[in-house]
């Protein structure tokens, strides 16, 4: 690491743009996304399928190329060092050592042919140049830390010997074995049962504090965000539409999409004893984006002209960023409620 890493943020993403070739032409899946994550913080990127949140996470460490994607613009600086444009070999030393990963489906990330102990030890040996014996000891230690009972024994088991929740723990042990400074977790609890999810989140929070890690956590679930995040980035149709510290975001969502997502949660309806409010229509396809604000066809507050013509810029508002020209006006509840909601469910793709 250079001396710059002392002051530089742990992760600084600027204007990141990722494109994929398709039969319909080149599509932009991540559109000038910027955010900063400091050490020891948890940043959640929340969005629905197709928002670009997962591609954002994968592209940070060069994992979109194998899927046909390309970073066409922007910068990703990890502890002050640029990652975009680095050779695969040099990225390999960063991945797994300084940056750990957890994915949604642990079974596809673990090799079924090796014991879990071997897989963790292998990573430790490669990145930490540890001896066979030390690497194995580290594997057992990590399995113990993520709460696998009789870890020394279980280290000799193969992935299929573990339940879904246990496999995700093994994945966490694997991701954290080299004491990474940054953990990227892409929907790590989505495939788990809720009771197992609750426990996995507790474990991640504990390990994050103990290891002073920065965590970039990708999720579609605002409930999970409320549980784990310090800061939140909301993505819609490849763009950041809102960014704010977690309490501000939930107390006063500034973008109608964020507010809509919150109101669409069954828990919100039950907590407030109100009917569930859906967001009408569907997420636009990346090759058929609406003009103006990309959310305007689904937004109850969209105004012709102002919201429908020119692209809307992300701008500073209070302690966050928002991509909505009407954000200030909509704070006045009388103005916000005066408008009728669009007709539900008739929007074609």
């Amino acid at each position, binding site marked *: 690491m250079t001396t710059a890493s002392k002051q530089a943020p742990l992760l600084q993403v600027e204007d990141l743009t990722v494109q994929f070739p398709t039969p319909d032409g080149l599509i932009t899946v991540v559109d000038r996304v910027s955010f900063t994550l400091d050490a020891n913080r948890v940043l959640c990127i929340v969005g629905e399928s197709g928002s670009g949140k997962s591609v954002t996470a994968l592209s940070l460490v060069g994992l979109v190329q194998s899927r046909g994607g390309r970073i066409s613009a922007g910068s990703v600086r990890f502890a002050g060092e640029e990652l975009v444009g680095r050779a695969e070999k040099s990225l390999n030393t960063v991945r797994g050592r300084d940056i750990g990963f957890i994915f949604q489906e642990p079974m596809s990330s673990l090799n079924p042919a090796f014991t879990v102990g071997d897989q963790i030890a292998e990573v430790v040996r490669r990145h930490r140049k540890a001896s066979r014996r030390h690497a194995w000891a580290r594997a057992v230690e990590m399995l113990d830390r993520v709460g696998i009972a009789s870890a020394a024994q279980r280290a000799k088991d193969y992935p299929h010997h573990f339940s879904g929740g246990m496999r995700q723990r093994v994945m966490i042990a694997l991701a954290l074995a080299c004491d990474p400074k940054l953990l990227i977790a892409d929907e790590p609890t989505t495939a788990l049962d809720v009771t197992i999810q609750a426990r996995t989140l507790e474990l991640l929070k504990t390990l994050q504090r103990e290891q002073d890690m920065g965590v970039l956590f990708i999720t579609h679930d605002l409930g999970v965000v409320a549980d784990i995040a310090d800061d939140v980035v909301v993505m819609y149709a490849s763009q950041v539409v809102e960014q704010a510290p977690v309490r501000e975001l939930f107390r006063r969502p500034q973008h109608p999409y964020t507010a809509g997502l919150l109101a669409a949660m069954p*828990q919100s309806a039950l907590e407030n004893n109100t009917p569930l409010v859906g967001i009408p229509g569907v997420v636009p396809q990346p090759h058929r984006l609406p003009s103006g604000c990309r959310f305007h066809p689904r937004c109850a507050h969209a105004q012709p002209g102002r919201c429908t013509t020119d692209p809307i810029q992300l701008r500073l508002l209070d302690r966050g960023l928002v991509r909505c020209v009407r954000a200030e006006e909509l704070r006045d509840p009388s103005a916000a409620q005066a408008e009728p909601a669009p007709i539900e469910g*008739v929007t074609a793709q």
Partner: protein
Amino acid sequence: MTTTSESRVPKLRVEDLEVTFDVGRGRKLHAVDGVSFHVDEGETLGLVGESGSGKSTTGMAVLRLAEPTSGRVYLGDTEVTGLRSRQLRPLRKRMQIVFQDPYSSLDPSMTIGQQLDEPLKVHTSLSKAERRARVDEALDTVKLSRRYTSRYPNEFSGGQRQRIAIARAMILDPELVVCDEPVSALDVSTQSQIVNLLLGIQEQSRTSFLFIAHDLAVVRLVSARTAVMYLGQLVETGPSARVYDAPAHPYTAALNSAIPIPDPDRQRTRDRIVLGGDQPSPLTPPSGCRFRTRCPFAMEVCAEEAPPQYPIDGGGYAACHLHTHGPQLRGASVLPLIHGDHLTTPLVSR
């Protein structure tokens, strides 16, 4: 509308249902083990549980899409379990299913119009024009444009496909629809649309619904009553509001507290039951109460005897020894125990 039936007789009655799968080497897996419940006409019963609870198998067995090993299922006056496979055919008109995955439950080679027309062709003697009118009506019900009849499933989003699947299930005006995780694969914004759509359909039809889901909050919204399953058995039943607000079984309380509240301050300070351990294998369920290996209140009796269903204040039943042993709740909620001294294993809460 539905055929004539006594409103006092439940539309669906399930008695002591058992479904066992032979998993080789003489081993048997009890996916569903002694489950009984009923659904009234026009009522929605939510069946909630995590993976491996047997909730989906229960739904399949009700429709005879999985073969019950023992027990009885009645749809109105018809005993579903007694019918031979040929006799089941007229029953298919009366009971329908909506699956979780709208991508695999629609035929990609048929237009939406054809898929909606198919059940009408098979089960009714309606003319082509009459069928066409019914298809249009069904699309209206699920708030999709009538123009969509000539399109194929791949032209639709997940939420739209689920609307089509619901239209197909409702088109014969069935007496019972089993919804097996109908919103689990959908995004939040779409999920809320489908939940609201189902609420609207419930109001307008006399159809009974068995709504199977893992999400207690969704079940609470769409179901008048809720039944909670764990490892093949019902652990708690009752009016949804009571089950949700005053759970009488520790598993229900844990399930509830595992759903994050979308409010950072409250979510991070509330008392929660975070369960330890994993769900045991259904091949070797624990003795006595099946939940005892993960229960923070487990007592000695829990390993010795299976708990009977105990009547709960505010309606329903819970199968838990806490009502008769230890704190002797006698039908009260387990929630106050979180703060009490009845914990036998430490509670993770923050």
